[in-house]
């Protein structure tokens, strides 16, 4: 789950980072009152809190030279969608005059199976371009998860991007704070870009944290409404509320599979035979009849799916549970609302086929025959 800039900065502040003073204004709140209450003096930065990249270039970050101007910009930004998303919060913070913009990030290196720290002398909005054009200007260091990011590691990284004196120690302390946040919050990413250099200290001008969804149970206080994240379409939000792993696509054949790999391969197969998938829906491992029922009922409702293709290869998922779920969905919907083709193979397959047959549905064993059938309907 992505955190808002103001949430990420609040966490960094708790860990000792020198975050610029600011105030969060929620939709409907009195911006002037909140800015005055917070004792903020211009110049100010007014920043739209949307969870999409490229906010600055899209006009979501503005500078105000007076409180009047800041108030006006808050109103303006609330009405300005960034990549289709209107913000619920605006962050107003003290503008910080800085001499340089650095880049810092900590993420997981899948192949090394370790955290990796990335730092660069050249931060700011064009970091991706810099990464492409001057990859050598981004310095990487892998961290032993047992040892953690020690002070001397952090200082070595600071040196590598040309820092010295007190700026170096300030930078090293900030990196270590970032690392601690990375560990304590089960983060997939902790980033500060730009990290401003002001005299002899570093100040995070922006901050981004992504928390591992599988660890959210340990960080309940951060959980937000999925609508706020702006990552999902209306139907994706509906699906997620029901616990379904669903991605909206452009075609007309509803797809249900078990396992991400098989579900994607099923989409690929449908394309190959000239069809177009309306979605990706993975019922996951060991799905119960109840979960299958929910998935089928969902696709009955989902308008893009004109027909439904279910491809199940049972392992930990049991075919009889799947069959029961399909049958229950049809009962609850008061009939077969849309044509369904089912391919059912694997654990408890015989029982699954029997249940479907009793309800007049013949399941396929061969995926290729099944896909030809769904396309022909």
């Amino acid at each position, binding site marked *: 789950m992505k955190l808002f800039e103001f949430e990420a900065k609040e966490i960094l502040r708790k860990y000792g980072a020198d975050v610029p003073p600011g105030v969060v204004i929620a939709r409907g709140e009195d911006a002037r009152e909140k800015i005055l209450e917070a004792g903020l003096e211009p110049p100010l930065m007014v920043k739209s809190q949307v969870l999409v990249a490229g906010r600055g270039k899209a006009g979501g970050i503005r500078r105000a030279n007076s409180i009047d101007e800041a108030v006006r910009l808050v109103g303006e930004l609330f009405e300005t969608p960034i990549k289709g998303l209107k913000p619920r919060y605006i962050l107003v913070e003290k503008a910080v005059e800085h001499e340089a913009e650095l880049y810092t990030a900590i993420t*997981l290196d*899948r*192949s090394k*199976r*370790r*955290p990796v720290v990335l730092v660069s002398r050249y931060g700011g909005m064009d970091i*991706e371009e810099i990464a492409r054009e001057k990859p050598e200007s981004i310095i990487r260091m892998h961290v*032993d*998860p*047992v040892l953690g990011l020690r002070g001397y590691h952090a200082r070595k990284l600071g040196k590598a991007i040309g820092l010295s004196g007190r700026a170096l120690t300030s930078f090293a302390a900030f990196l270590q704070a970032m690392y601690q946040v990375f*560990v304590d919050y*089960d983060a*997939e990413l902790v980033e500060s870009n730009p990290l401003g250099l002001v005299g002899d200290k570093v100040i995070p001008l922006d901050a981004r944290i992504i928390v*591992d*969804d*599988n*660890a959210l*149970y*340990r960080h309940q206080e951060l959980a937000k409404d999925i609508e706020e994240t702006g990552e999902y379409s209306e139907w994706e939000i509906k699906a997620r509320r029901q616990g379904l*792993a669903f*991605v909206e*696509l452009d075609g007309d054949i509803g797809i249900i*599979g*078990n*396992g*991400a*790999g*098989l*579900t*994607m*391969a099923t*989409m*690929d*197969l449908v*394309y*190959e035979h000239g069809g177009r*998938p309306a979605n*990706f829906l*993975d019922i*996951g*491992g*060991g799905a119960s009849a109840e979960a299958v029922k929910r998935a089928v009922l969902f696709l009955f409702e989902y308008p893009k799916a004109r027909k439904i293709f279910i491809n199940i*290869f*049972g*392992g*930990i*998922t049991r075919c009889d549970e799947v069959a029961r779920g399909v049958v229950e969905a049809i009962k609850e919907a008061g009939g077969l609302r849309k044509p369904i083709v089912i391919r059912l*193979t*694997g*654990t408890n*397959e015989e029982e699954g086929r029997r249940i479907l047959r009793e309800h007049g549905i013949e399941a396929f064993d061969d*995926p*290729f025959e099944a896909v030809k059938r769904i396309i022909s309907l």
Partner: protein
Amino acid sequence: MAILADENTRVIVQGITGREGSFHTKLMLEYGTKIVAGVTPGKGGMEVHGVPVYDTVEEALEEHPDANASIVFVPARFAPDAVYEAIDAGLKLVVVITEHIPVHETMRFVNYARQRGTVIIGPNCPGIISPGKTKIGIMPGRVFTPGPVGIVSRSGTLTYEIAYALTRSGIGQSTVVGIGGDPIVGLSFTEAMELFERDPETKVLVLIGEIGGDMEERAARMIEEGRFTKPVVAFIAGRTAPPGKRMGHAGAIIMMGTGRYEDKVRALEKAGARVARSLSEIPRLVKEALEKA
């Protein structure tokens, strides 16, 4: 021969009294897997399908000192603890079926296991099967058959699909290992390939990848550098998946222009692997590879 697990592997089932643990213990026993003990804290003294249950791995090992592997069905919150327990008890192979383990936890126990010389398969994986010998996993046993093809895969169900297609074409498998779909896993493609390279029974390798990450590209580099010399047939799922979207919980996501379908196919083909564009092509490509092998 086989890699990692064969008829001499003696298995402890961690989380044996749970719904999945108990169900799959039965299926593994039916397959012929030598399951010597189960572990569930607080349930010591019970029996599950005739398998004695202990409170700790250590106790299980006292009674069954020949055990050398474990399979973990413990729920995500408690699974890391179970994995450390197995590593500390000295088991050399730990198959972690559990999904939704926080990635920082996985990273820590995988690094710990490496230091102690334990191989972790998974998490969030179907396990490993050496057909006709043993099955330490949740895959449907009947779709596999003994033979000369090794399979390594990031996707559980897709593995069954492809093994089934091979079996129906009369092509058997030496060992099939599902390494799991999480961003960080214990055994990687290239590590599995090192083992397959040394296994005389394996003549051809089938590599089943998906979009996201760079594991397939690394496998390609290994082939290109001559560190894997057997013929490889590959399939990459997600050709039609839109970029930037996370497909399910499997961590298949295309980010920052890496891990795209085309990149993986290009890397593998450049290295000399045959890449099947369709699932239906796989048996034919494998047959051709076997004829040349």
